[in-house]
């Protein structure tokens, strides 16, 4: 088990506010690593640092895969996807709403197509190399449409899709960049139990069949406990627990962070059940 992503001493300050405070953890390839924590714990800030939206105040974010080792905090925006091969989805969905579903998936394969098209000129004259690359791009897109059950909606404008389908399309689009690390920001938010169960299967398949490392921010504990291999718990920007899900859910510090400090009081059984324990 090799570390795909190594976060060391990540600190992010906004003026006087420290959103992430000296955070270190690793995420392995072929594993689902969940980052959990109460609202405002700094989870999305970690993602924003990883994907180049913020420059960390302090810290080193190393991503290592077959193609080399990259320091994410030093890469230009588009190189994070192109070279380090990190893909991401958003809590508030950010699809290209006025493009079709299929176009959303093809635009995610921009760099391959750009190279194959000789930076557009060859492509314009219908060069066979570009035609082939475009066919491959459509095939990969079709593959992910099938796996996210969107095949029938391929020609819809993305903005007109139902909510659950938009969420799946975001994951499909991220996968079309051929990532080694997939960062998902609350992918189960707003999904009904059936959809959320489907999502679990999809993410497990992405881990097991595609061999992609998944970094997951999630509030839905049932998702976290069922599918993650490794859980990192944040509170006020600090790491308060780190380990396999069973260990984390029984960690007193975690329970305190979620439920507040109330000594000598039994947790209501439904909350314990929610956390996945037995009352």
């Amino acid at each position, binding site marked *: 088990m090799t570390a795909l992503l190594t976060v060391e001493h990540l600190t992010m300050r906004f003026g006087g506010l420290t959103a992430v405070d000296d955070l270190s953890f690793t995420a392995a390839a072929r594993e689902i690593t969940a980052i959990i924590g109460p609202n405002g714990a700094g989870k999305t800030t970690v993602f924003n640092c990883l*994907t*180049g*939206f913020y420059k960390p105040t302090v810290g080193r974010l190393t991503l290592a895969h077959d193609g080399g080792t990259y320091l994410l905090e030093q890469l230009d*925006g*588009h*190189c*994070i*996807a*192109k070279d380090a091969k990190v*893909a*991401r989805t*958003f809590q508030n969905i*950010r699809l*290209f*709403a*006025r*493009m079709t579903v299929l*176009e959303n998936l*093809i*635009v*995610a394969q*921009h*760099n391959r*197509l*750009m190279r194959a*098209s000789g*930076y*557009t000129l060859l*492509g*314009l004259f219908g060069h066979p190399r570009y035609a082939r690359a475009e066919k491959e791009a459509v095939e990969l897109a079709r593959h992910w449409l099938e796996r996210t059950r969107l095949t029938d909606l391929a020609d819809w404008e993305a903005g007109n899709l139902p909510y659950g389908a938009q969420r799946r399309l975001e994951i499909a*689009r991220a996968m079309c*960049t051929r990532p080694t690390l997939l960062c998902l920001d609350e992918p189960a938010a707003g999904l009904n139990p059936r959809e959320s169960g489907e999502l679990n299967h999809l993410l497990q398949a992405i881990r097991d069949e595609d061999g992609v490392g998944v970094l997951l921010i999630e509030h839905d504990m049932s998702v976290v406990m069922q599918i993650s291999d490794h859980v990192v718990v944040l509170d006020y920007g600090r790491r308060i627990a780190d380990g396999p899900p069973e260990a984390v859910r029984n960690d007193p510090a975690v329970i305190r962070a979620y439920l507040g400090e109330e000594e000598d009081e039994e947790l209501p059984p439904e909350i314990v059940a929610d956390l996945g324990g037995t009352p």
Partner: protein
Amino acid sequence: MEYFLQQLINGLTLGAIYGLIAIGYTMVYGIIGMINFAHGDVFMIGAFIAIIAFALVWTTGLASIPLAILLVLVVTMIFTAAYGWAVERIAYRPLRGSFRLAPLISAIGMSIFLQNYVQLLQGARIKPLPPLISGGVILTEGNGFAVQLNYTQMIIIVVTVLLMAAFTLVITRTALGRAQRACEQDRGMAALLGIDVDRTISLTFVMGAALAAVAGLMFALYYGVVDFFIGFLAGLKAFTAAVLGGIGSLPGAMLGGILIGLIEAFWSGYFSVEYKDVAAFSILVLVLIFRPTGLLGRPEVEKV
């Protein structure tokens, strides 16, 4: 009737030139949400480069006029595109992420700079281009009036249609076009998919400038004279065309260009030549009042 037909042809020709310039405004607005006020001057530079290129081609003694025009077209597009690229690199990219008005002011500065740059290098007097293409086709004749479509007009309309088709293909079918549309909708997300946003924006300026170069060449061929100030009025008209068609919309820019060209031609044909600009700009005012999104524009939806 014959007179009407003639004005229609004149208007379409003029409209084609405005449309080509308007595409540059609309593409840049689409991708970075900024009006590139130096674009009219890039058109003017294109016209000058065309005249210089013609002079150079003459010295080589090339006899075939169609070949000469094709050569000049390519050279003009390349050099003007380089100007477009430089304008973006120098005046707009350093200000990206700054407050909204900053690039607008630097665009106006760039416009003034380009005008003075050309005035200094080429002089303030008008530069003539000797008529290269003469003759035309008489379409109909009647009431002592012959409707003529001359060869210059024919070239302008044909080249414009071809370029429009090529650009539509680039935008809808190629990786670059998709990247441009992606950057238009969400630049941050586009970067996360590995799209080099800065390069895509640069290429948008390059494409816009190349079209303005064609318009510059056509203008020089059609009117036979250019000076350092032609970019101002032509730019303003093309901008009006882009707003009329719906800024951000490519077919809108072309439609707007043609409408402005027709309005101008018919106004000068039937009312007064002096007030043709008033007519064109009155349209701008009316559109802004009654249909601020333009004819083919889509309504701005506030993000929540």
